[in-house]
Each structure stands twice: as C-alpha cells, then as structure tokens.
C-alpha cells in the first residue's frame, strides 16, 4: 500500500464554488428576514429551477442543508431529535436531519432559512420525497404542491407523461402567481432555460474530460463539490460563468496532463451517494490507492447531460418536463442505471465499479446486489459492494470499510500483475 497522497482538488474553482454557495445562503438569510425574494423548497433531483426564475424566486434544497450538516459532522443531533418525536431508525436520515433542524432551529451555516413560499414536491422517482415534503409542509404550515412526475417505466416517456407534467408545471405557475403576487415572466423563464442549456453543455464537456488519463478531476468527490452551483445557479448567468471557468481550468490540467494524483493507478466508477459524515475519511481510502473516479451516477441526480440532453429555449415547458421525466438518474428506471454505469465503464475506460449502498436511500440501494451480479457475472467487471449511510454517522464502520476497499484494490493489483506475468512468460 502506497503512502497517502494529497486527496483534495488542487485548483481555484472549489473556492469559487464555496463563494457562490455562501452567497446563496446569504440570500436565503435575507429572505428569512425580509420575505424577499420568494423561496421555493424543491428536491434536487429533476429540479425545475428555471421555472422559479420566472418569478425571481430562489430555491431551497433540503438535501443540500442535510448534506452540509453531515459534512460538518453535525447531523447526529437533529437525527436524534427527529427520532425522539417518533421517526424510526429505518427512516431516511436526510429527512430526519432536516426535520430535526427545523425543530431545533439549526442551519448548516448558522444563518436563517426562510419559511418557503411554496413547498414544491417535484417528486421524481423518490417516494420518500412525497412523505418528506408532506411533513415539511405539515410542520412549517407552508403551502404544498405535489408535482406528480410519472416514473420512467420504459426507456422514454410517453406523450401522456409529458403532457401530464407540462399541465402540472402550468398549475405551479398559477399557484406561484397567487402566492407571490407576481406575474410569471415568461421571457425570463425562457432566458433561464437558455442559460441552463449552456451550463449543461459545459458540464457535459467537463464530465467527458475524465476520459483522459490521468483524469484532471475526480468525477465523484470533486464532481459533488461542483454540483451545488449546478442546482442553484443552473438557470443563471453566474452559472454559465462558473462552469466556463471550471471547464477552462480543467482543460489546462489535461493539457499539462496533471491528474488528481501524481500517478493514477486505478480508474473507478462509483454508484451511490457518499457517506457525507465521513466524506474525507472515505475519500482518503481511495486516495491511498491513487484510485480516481472517472464517472459516478450520484453526480447525475440533478440531471444526466453527458449523453446529450439539453434544455431547449424553443420549447421551455416541454424541455423542463423532459428533464424531470427522463434526464435525471432518480426518475430513470433501475436497468437504465445499469446501462449508464456500463457506458461509464466502457467509454470512460474504468478498471472497476464501486457500489456504495446507503441505508437511507432505497431508491439508490434496493437491488444493488443484483446490479453487482450484472456487472461481475454478466460483464465480468470487478465490483466492490460496501455499505454505510449518507447522513447518519452511526452506520459507517471505518475499519470494515477500509478493509473491503483495500482488499478490492489488492485483487485488482494482483490481477494486473498476473496479467503482466502471463504476457512476460
């Protein structure tokens, strides 16, 4: 096992990202005080942030609050608070942390969070969200709108699916007009959709840079850091500027072939959310093997763009509907996820797949044993399956996890050597 290399991104965009997110939290804090601008609680998956632009409203993402809390090692207290009021050990810890914070008045940054103008449950795939947002509405008294997005039963949505979502998006517009007292600005909405398609093009190019060896960034750990602006600023000029800067910086690294590690030893694809309470510890376990993630499914929760989809300013409502229905990992069916990972392995040239089962999220995790079966037995791709949680620190067993990860890379290493030996002999 090699000495431990630096396991963090070296560059300027991470700082820019921090500033952008801080600015967002400050605007939320301002909204909490003045009621302006209006805010809408949404879930990250298949969010329709462009629609909010039409009202000059800004999004609140309970998941972002929850994960920020976990990264800062502050998630257990609110989780316990929620369990005291009756939430079960088996309930999603994101929800418990979020509700717990609400009860205890905790926020990740210490700033205030406004009572949302509307709780918009843009439920895509995750049934838990329906409950979560219902509870948020019940505890905050904020109005709730459930945008029922049909799950992708087949490979593409039917016209009925698209019409259904478009109809509901327009119902949301009407609802927001009454709640905010503002007229929906269609042009601003369309402009926002246009920005989104630009951001998506840039983000997609960034994702494809990871095909280089060495990869200029870690498409799991680093991608997660870049996701914040993707959800909050996607429909804005700031978003376009940020991702243009990101693309430039990473392209430079490719030119000088600067990788995440001085020497890239393994290329992996990661499935599943990270254990945020042990984010750094977890990353170090891969860093010690100089294993870099070249792609990840989790970074496509907000949207799947590396395979070509873009929002379309010519059909803003339809393209927003299309994005919610078919272009984010959570509303796509399970077998489509198998295929997404298969493409990553083959087109991004990876040595193996890491499946991280998280207790909280059955959307991600239920059936990952079968996924593993598909990759190891049908495709012959080495696959590691490990378990913990994305929010609850009580389910991360450091020694066990490290042991499994070390064993996995030992076997990859051995396979490489055996192969080399076979050639030399």
């Amino acid at each position, binding site marked *: 096992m090699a000495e431990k290399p630096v396991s963090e991104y070296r560059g300027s965009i991470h700082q820019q990202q921090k500033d952008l997110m801080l600015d967002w939290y400050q605007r939320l804090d301002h909204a909490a005080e003045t009621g302006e601008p209006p805010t809408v609680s949404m879930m990250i998956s298949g969010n329709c942030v462009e629609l909010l632009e039409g009202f000059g409203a800004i999004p609140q993402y309970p998941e972002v609050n929850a994960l920020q809390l976990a990264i800062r090692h502050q998630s257990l207290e609110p989780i316990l608070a929620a369990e005291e009021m009756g*939430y079960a050990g088996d309930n999603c810890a994101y929800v418990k942390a979020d509700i717990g914070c609400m009860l205890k008045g905790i926020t990740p940054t210490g700033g205030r969070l406004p009572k949302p103008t509307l709780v918009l449950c843009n439920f895509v795939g995750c*049934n838990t969200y329906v409950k979560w947002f*219902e509870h948020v509405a019940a505890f905050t008294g904020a109005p709730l709108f459930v945008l029922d997005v049909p799950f992708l039963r087949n490979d593409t949505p039917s016209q009925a699916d698209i019409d259904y979502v478009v109809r509901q998006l327009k119902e949301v517009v009407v609802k927001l007009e009454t709640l905010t007292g503002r007229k929906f600005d269609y042009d601003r909405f369309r402009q926002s959709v246009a920005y989104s398609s630009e951001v998506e093009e840039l983000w997609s190019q960034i994702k494809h840079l990871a095909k280089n060896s060495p990869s200029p960034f870690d498409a799991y750990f680093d991608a997660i850091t870049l996701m914040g602006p993707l959800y909050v600023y996607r429909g804005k000029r700031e978003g376009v500027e940020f991702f243009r800067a990101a693309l430039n910086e990473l392209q430079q690294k490719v030119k000088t072939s600067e990788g995440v590690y001085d020497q890239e030893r393994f290329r992996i694809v990661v499935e599943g959310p990270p254990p945020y309470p042990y984010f750094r510890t977890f990353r170090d376990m891969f860093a010690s093997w100089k294993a870099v993630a070249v792609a990840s499914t989790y970074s496509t929760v907000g949207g799947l763009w590396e395979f070509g989809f873009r929002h379309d300013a010519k059909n803003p409502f339809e393209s927003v509907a299309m994005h919610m229905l078919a272009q984010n990992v959570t509303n796509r069916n399970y077998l489509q996820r198998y295929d997404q990972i298969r493409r990553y392995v083959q087109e991004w040239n990876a040595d193996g797949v890491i499946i991280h*089962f998280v207790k909280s999220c059955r959307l991600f995790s*239920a059936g*990952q*044993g079968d996924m593993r079966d598909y990759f190891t037995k049908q495709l012959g791709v080495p696959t590691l399956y490990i*378990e913990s949680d994305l929010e609850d620190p009580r389910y991360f067993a450091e020694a066990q996890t490290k042991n499994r990860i070390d064993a996995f890379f030992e076997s990859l290493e051995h396979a490489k050597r055996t192969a080399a030996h076979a050639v030399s002999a």
Partner: protein
Amino acid sequence: MKQFERTFDSLLEGMQDLSFASVRRWKKQHPGAKSVAFFPVYAPVELVHAAGMLPVLLSGAGDRLDIQHADSRFGSFICSIIKTTMEMAMTGHLEPFDGLLFSSICDSARNLCFVIKRNYPQMYVDFLHLPHSTSDSSVEFLTEEYRRIKVELERLSGEPIQPAALRHSIALYNIQRSLVRQLYELRAQSPHLLRAWESYVLIRSGNFMPVEEHIEILKQALDYLPTRPGKKRDAIRVVIEGAFCEQPPLELIRLLENAGCDVVEDDLAIAQRWFTDDVPISGDPVHALAESYVHRSVYSSVRHDFSKPRWEGMAEKVRSTRAEAVIFLIAKFCEPAYFDFVLFKKKVDEMGLPHLLLEFEEKLFTFDRLRTEVETFVESLVFD
C-alpha cells in the same frame, strides 16, 4: 351452515400454499388462459379479469420460505416481502404466472420490479404509475396509464378487452367489495361473531381465487355469521394501522385477540376493500376505474390525497367503530408506514387515544417479546 366453520381451515390452507395450486387448477380448467400476479398494495384487477385472465394478489411468503438466494440481490435494511418475493422468483414459485405488475408504492418495490424484469425476461413485468396527487390531470393521466396497461394485457391474452366485458368485471368486483365492507361492518358491530384472523382469512382468500368464487364464499359467510354462537367478551376495541403491504403472521393477530383486544378495524389485505364506493359502470369503464382510484380510494400510506389527510381518515375509522385504542402494526423497514406513523401518532395524541407500536416481519416464530408488549398495553388500560 355449521359446516362453514370448516371453510376457514380450507381457506387458510389455500392462503398459505406457495405452490399456488388454486391458480394451477384454474389454468388447467381454462386451457390457454393466463394468470397475472400483482405486488401489493392496490391493483386494477378488473382489467385482468376482463381480459379473461386470473388476477392474483401476491402477499409475500409468510413464514413458509427461507431466504437462501435473495440476500445476494437485495442488501440490508430492505423489508422482508421484497426479499421473499425475490426468493419466490429465484426458486420457481412464480412459475404459474404469465405476468407480474408492480405499482408506485415505494422505492424498494419499484426496484424489485426492474430486477425481476432483468432476471425473468420471458415474463411480462410492468410498472404502473399510480398518481401521488388528485388533480383532474391525475385522472386524465391515470386513464391513459390504464389504457397503456390494457394494451399490454391484450397482447398477453391475445384478445381485445371489450368495454362490455370490462363493465361486467367492474360490476363483479363492486359486489365483492361491498360484501367485504358488509363483513367489516358486522365485525365492528359484533366482534364476538367474527374474530379478526377469521375475517382476515375470509378476505385475503380473495387474493388468489376467481372473484366469482370469492363472492359465493362471502355470501355464505354473511348468511351464517349472524347466526353463529358466541358471547360478547370484555375486551378493548382496537384499530390496526400500518399492515397494508407486508402481512403480519396470523399468530400475531390471534395474539392480539387472546391478549384482550377486539380488532374492530384494520388495513390488512386492503386491496380487497380499496374503494369507498362502487366504481361507476356507466360511461368509459377505464376512465371510471381511474377516476375512482383518484377520488374514491380508501386512505393508505401509499396513496396520497393532500386535500384529505390520511390521519383524518384514521380518526374517522376510530370514531365510526368506537375504537378505544390504535395499534400500529408496522413491518420492519417499511418506510411509508414509519413516515406516516409520525403524523398519525400526532393525531392519536391529540385525540387522547392510547396507542401501541408493534414491529413485525412476515416471518416470526417466537412471540414472547410481542406478547409481553401487547399484554402490558392491555394491562395499562384495564388495571386501575
């Protein structure tokens, strides 16, 4: 009518038969006819029936199947019914079925749908998106969704589903559901005439037999039961809440009664009484089914109508049956039930109703822990 007593045992036998002999028998009697199974909770069985096929509602494997393969596909923290259903598939128990339908009840069930689809390509496996909202566009959407399923079912059976046939099926299931509603009224009125486990067996047996047969059995039951000997007993009237998908062991329901509870309402095998009223037979039958689902379904943790909170539905149940307590019977790892528990508990506390939370798995062999908790609950209500 005395011989009706023996019916319970035969129904129980059928209920516990994992070889689905009744389904095989039916298929033998109807050469070439097919059978379609549904994963809980609700299913538009009328569509299958109208296509001349036998709809069967799966309810896990109870304690009659050991998990020897399914853990390799589904990891920790996944409920038992997901694993036993996967195990049934992996051990050939689902062989009598030509199709398997899932619906949007929870994330685990949905993923199971696609896992089975991958492993058993020869089988028709489909996923039905039941709306989580109750706007008019939801009705419109569900109508379209049912039409989509209808086309698939027609492809499976090889026969088009005629509107008349569908109306006939709807009429039959209307009768079945109204008989089940009567059964529940009788039980709520005089629990000493019909024990909870008996009524459970009576309605759940409808899951795997032709609706025509089930209607006959229900009629006989309703004729006989009022004449049944039995004396009122000193017991606490309770409502069971939360066991709408994975089903608790029969022994657990008996245990509740032996500990001094009269179960006057429950959500066991809820699909058999899904609609609060008949499905209209006039007009477009597909639209009628969709419209009934969106506007006239019973409340359930897996169906969302934000204009009528589910906990109000529970409160209404309690009032109408004059229940004295609520027992939350929740399957291990059942996320929908556990989320609802928080808001339901808030409601029962407001109503000043005593409640007890019991966690179960479909497979249990020793009941001492649970018995102690139930008896304590009863003791806390009877001892002064």
